[in-house]
């Protein structure tokens, strides 16, 4: 089980901020993104290569994902 978080415009597209996804682990962020885009309503509109974070750290798409990890989909950053 992986915990998913969506923010800002992505949360609007998916219709929620928090989801859980059951998938074989360990896996990669890229695989989580692929399954989310294919299986979560509204998520097909997310980019194929979004900014992502795992457990509160920016990561690349090839980063590993383990059971219980929090994977966040981050729209283009606009802080400051």
């Amino acid at each position, binding site marked *: 089980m992986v915990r998913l978080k969506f923010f800002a415009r992505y949360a609007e597209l998916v219709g929620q901020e928090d989801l859980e996804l059951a998938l074989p682990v360990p896996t990669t962020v890229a695989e989580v993104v692929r399954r989310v885009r294919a299986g979560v309503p509204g998520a097909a509109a997310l980019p194929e290569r979004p900014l992502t974070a795992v457990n509160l750290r920016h*990561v*690349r798409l090839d980063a590993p994902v383990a059971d219980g990890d929090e994977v966040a989909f981050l729209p*283009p950053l606009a*802080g*400051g």
Partner: protein
Amino acid sequence: MEGGYTTREPISPAALLALVAGPDCGATCLFLGTVRDGPEDGGVTGIEYSAYEAMAGAELDRILAEARRQWPAARVALRHRLGLVPTEEASIGIAAAAPHRADAFAACRHVIEEVKRRLPIWKKELRADGSVLWVDPQGRPAVVGPE
């Protein structure tokens, strides 16, 4: 870890300056990022800021720790406002104090640039005509962490 970086209240420059003040510091820089009207965009009356707050706190801990390693004699304090920020009010305030001005300027500049590059915060522009728009900064490269 300093924590408490975000607030829904107006940012107080005096409070930020007090956090970094000390007898060892001969130079203090204060940076304020303020919400700017965009007449060319149809008029911006305010910006609604939202954040991945847990990650923003963790990322700011890392950014400030990096600044401490690079400028050990400097002290930096930061507040980022969330929620609706009207035009002309500050969305972010950074105070940096150091024994000499070069380090104060450099540490302050470094922290705001890293905030822009790394902080999981988003903004929705409220336009004068009642429309709203998620801001998607042009040409910003994907962020892939400092490690």
